[in-house]
């Protein structure tokens, strides 16, 4: 059992997500930075999709009621060695500082966070109203039984501290609705150093820059969306959809990030620059 003393700016339980229900209006959710989640889980011997704590801009403080092995990945925070399985005795307080680079950190607990599941996942989805509420001071989180797999020997798993190269770059494929935009719009998308806005969140990364010009007026009948899609509302500034984005939308999608892009997007801070190629 662990107790949340302080949640920091925003923290929630996230696992591999709840795929397979988009046809019912349910988004995938799950960790925004899936590779970081999987690494943290691997380090403590958990299945890769096990529920962990997704921490936004550090600040999390917790009290370990029962001894547990943990690992921290994603944005490095002072307070726990990054990328290292650490056995924490009962009664210990872990206090994570604000990371100096990156945005989202993942704290995996050996055995996983053992709260209730909804539709096969423990992920918080605030937009869809599914899963546990975001973490607050006083919350008690049960920890599951230790898995069969042992903790990684950190010497056997070479793990490098992540380096944040700015401006970040995400690879995209054009379409499906690039034909809704002026001929130069894709080039403009690729040549602009977009600015990450402060109102970005798990629903989407909102970007500032020169508006992308449409050649087709009117509205697009709602179509399914996926996290990683670059949706362009009427003001012409794209939104990179995140894990909690609505599963259908009526704004044209000019391009979609390749699969690795979401993990990069998850670490973008307001004020960071983002390019596409």
């Amino acid at each position: 059992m662990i107790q949340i003393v302080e949640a920091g700016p925003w923290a929630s339980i996230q696992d591999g997500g709840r795929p397979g229900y988009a046809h019912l209006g349910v988004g995938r959710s799950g960790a925004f930075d899936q590779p970081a989640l999987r690494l943290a889980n691997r380090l403590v011997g958990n299945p890769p999709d096990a529920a962990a704590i997704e921490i936004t801009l550090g600040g999390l403080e917790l009290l370990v009621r029962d001894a547990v092995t943990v690992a921290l990945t994603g944005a490095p925070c002072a307070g726990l060695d990054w990328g290292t399985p650490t056995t924490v005795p009962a009664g210990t307080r872990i206090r994570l500082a604000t990371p100096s680079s990156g945005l989202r950190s993942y704290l995996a607990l050996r055995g996983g966070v053992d709260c209730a599941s909804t539709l096969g996942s423990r992920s918080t989805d605030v937009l869809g109203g599914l899963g546990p509420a975001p973490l607050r001071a006083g919350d008690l989180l049960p920890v599951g039984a230790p898995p069969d797999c042992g903790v990684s020997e950190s010497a056997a798993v070479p793990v490098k501290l992540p380096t944040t190269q700015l401006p970040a770059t995400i690879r995209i494929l054009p379409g499906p609705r690039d034909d809704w935009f002026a001929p130069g719009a894709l080039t403009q998308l690729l040549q602009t150093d977009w600015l990450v806005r402060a109102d970005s969140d798990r629903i989407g990364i909102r970007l500032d820059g020169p508006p992308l010009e449409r050649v087709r007026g009117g509205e697009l009948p709602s179509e399914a969306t996926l996290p990683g899609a670059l949706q362009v509302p009427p003001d012409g500034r794209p939104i990179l959809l995140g894990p909690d984005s609505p599963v259908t939308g009526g704004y044209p999608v000019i391009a979609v990030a390749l699969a690795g892009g979401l993990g990069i997007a998850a670490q973008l801070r307001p004020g960071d620059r983002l390019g596409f190629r």
Partner: protein
Amino acid sequence: MTPREEPGALAPAATEPVRVLPYGDQALLIEPADPAQILPLRDALVGLPGCSEFVPAAGTLLVRIEAATFVRATLDAALTAALARAGQGAPYSDPDAPCVVLPVRYDGADLDLIADDAGCSPDEVVRRHSTATYQVAFCGFSPGFAYLSGGDRSLDQPRLATPRRSVPAGSVGIAAGYTGVYPRESPGGWRLLGTTAATLWDPFRDDPALLPPGTRVRFEIEPS
């Protein structure tokens, strides 16, 4: 966020029976010239290797693909065969699709407005709405929110320019050619006809959504 619809606002090139558009490296977006083909095409693709999720919408079907096992030629062949079958006649109707009857108290805030625009009495609006047979074309906007097609077009309404901040759970609304039922209290941009007490969404039920795509739906007047 409010559901938005304008069916028919965008039609693909008239000569192409279906377009297959890229959606990143993990999905394809299928757009038939006739939106009525969306669910038949979905049925034709279910079970194809490498196709893992099917998300219908107003004019398209998103298919999630696993690169390791997906074969594009197999998908194209299945689409062609399905469209050829469709060309031979009967409109899509799945005799095994469940029919859900929703009791409705027709006392919505916009009933008079809908009647005025349709040029008839509120009682006639209720009659036209409750005697139609609907089909769930797709879900979106929020868990369990179904877009129902098949209603009387004389009752159609545009969405509100400014959505109401809150509409009650179970609200039955009309917009842009669809009837929709709000599973829970939320902002709402649709014109309101009434309310149903049915539970549209329960994530802990075996079938969490009462109205998944393809379900047939009727509305029944609940005496007030």
